[in-house]
């Protein structure tokens, strides 16, 4: 570890890896620190991603693809199913990744581009000079280092602390933090090409249950519920245990994964002097799906590029870095997040009778495109009464 770098990236997930790679490709000296001893572990993710989204950043590789999907199935409280995509969609839908391998691949790519990687290296505080982030204190193997950097990219995930230490309020409201538990369940009868989403207030209040295949007779089976719906005897794991006992009584559980996913609005501003915040740390996970991989990769890459451009001009002030914030916020990502937040606010509090009614109304429809937007438009078409109840949402589509 050197004393100073152009760019310090805190966190070795997809956001940090893409940031480090992009900055290194621009010829900058880059240090990426990951507090855990291994990149990619432990997994905190249901591992689903759209194919087209992923293709923006990386060629698909069977090494880290656990399942290739051609449909998504919504399952209502009474068990009624609505399938999106079909066998004719040519497997364009999405993948379930193996994040342990995927994350390592992304970090390797950053290293290949010239970034220095340090694992089991934890940022414990920013170095602040004149109120501006100027590096970080790093702990590794019992030693403490003061590492200076012209730009710090905070990619420290849902448990992000770096931006908070720098004075930015990153606290997620309890009701907008989905508390999640997931098992890898083996030896179960599943459609290995379909992601299942169970929508039910009773079974997953203000959240959903997912079954994402991970190959032959194996799936990620998980749940997210709103933080305010959690409590003693009715925590995410309690709901998940009930679901697994009911749906997969003979399944063999080989891994327990827990985590939090924010479904709030993004941070009001994702830059400060010499600081850029990306991915989950910037609260950029999708408010409807909870998906965050693409959003982290997109903002990570953008952050690396913006940092490089700012350094070339010799100005890494908040004003100079604002182009990062405006680019994602005013582009397709920001619009999708704003729309999906509105969708979430409109649908999350519906009761099971309403969910049943909506899914019944869709049973005759077929939908090939698996996006939140196309789904919500289809729901509106099949349920004209919703336009009266959710006029503001209609405007956002």
């Amino acid at each position: 570890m050197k004393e100073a770098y152009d760019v310090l990236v805190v966190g070795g997930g997809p956001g940090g890896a893409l940031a480090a790679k992009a900055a290194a490709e621009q010829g900058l000296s880059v240090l990426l620190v990951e507090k855990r001893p291994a990149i990619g572990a432990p997994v905190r993710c249901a591992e689903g991603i759209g194919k087209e989204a992923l293709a923006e950043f990386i060629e698909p590789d069977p090494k880290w693809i656990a399942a290739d999907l051609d449909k998504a199935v919504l399952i209502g409280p009474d068990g009624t199913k609505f399938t999106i995509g079909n066998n004719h969609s040519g497997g364009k839908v999405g993948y379930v990744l193996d994040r342990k391998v995927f994350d390592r691949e992304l970090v390797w790519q950053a290293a290949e581009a010239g970034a220095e990687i340090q694992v089991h290296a934890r940022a414990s505080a920013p170095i602040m000079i004149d109120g501006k982030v100027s590096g970080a204190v790093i702990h590794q193997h019992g030693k403490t280092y003061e590492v200076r950097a012209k730009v710090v990219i905070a990619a420290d995930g849902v448990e992000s602390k770096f931006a908070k230490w720098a004075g930015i309020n990153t606290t997620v409201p309890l009701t907008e933090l989905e508390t999640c538990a997931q098992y890898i369940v083996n030896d179960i009868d599943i459609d290995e090409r379909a992601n299942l989403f169970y929508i039910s207030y009773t079974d997953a209040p203000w959240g959903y249950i997912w079954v994402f295949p991970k190959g032959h007779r194996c799936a990620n089976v998980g749940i997210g519920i709103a933080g305010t719906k959690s409590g003693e005897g009715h925590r995410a794991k309690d709901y998940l245990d009930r679901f697994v006992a009911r749906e997969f009584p003979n399944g063999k559980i080989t891994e327990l994964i827990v985590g939090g996913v924010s479904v709030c609005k993004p941070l009001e501003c994702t830059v400060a002097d010499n600081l850029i915040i990306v991915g989950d740390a910037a609260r950029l996970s999708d408010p409807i799906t909870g998906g965050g991989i693409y959003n982290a990769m997109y903002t990570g890459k953008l952050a690396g590029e913006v940092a490089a451009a700012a350094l070339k001009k010799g100005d890494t002030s908040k004003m100079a870095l604002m182009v990062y914030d405006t680019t994602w916020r005013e582009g397709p990502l920001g619009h999708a997040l704003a729309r999906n937040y509105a969708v979430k606010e409109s649908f999350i509090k519906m009761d099971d009778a309403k969910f049943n009614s909506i899914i019944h109304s869709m049973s005759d429809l077929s939908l090939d495109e698996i996006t939140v937007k196309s789904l919500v438009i289809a729901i509106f078409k099949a349920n004209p009464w919703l336009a009266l109840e959710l006029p503001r949402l209609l405007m956002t589509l």
Partner: protein
Amino acid sequence: MIHIRRDVCGYCGACVSVCPRGALELIDAYLTVDETLCKSKCKICSTVCPLGAIELEEQ
């Protein structure tokens, strides 16, 4: 004071993200609480925990 049941905690960080005082931190693979910051009145962390690893201890 809050008590972290280390044998139950899945060190996922859900509690860290909702703590309004920034008192919790996930250091590598264990959760720590800064008792100078935590007032252990809000119970947000023990509510949100997916596993039930955080208990409130009587003073």
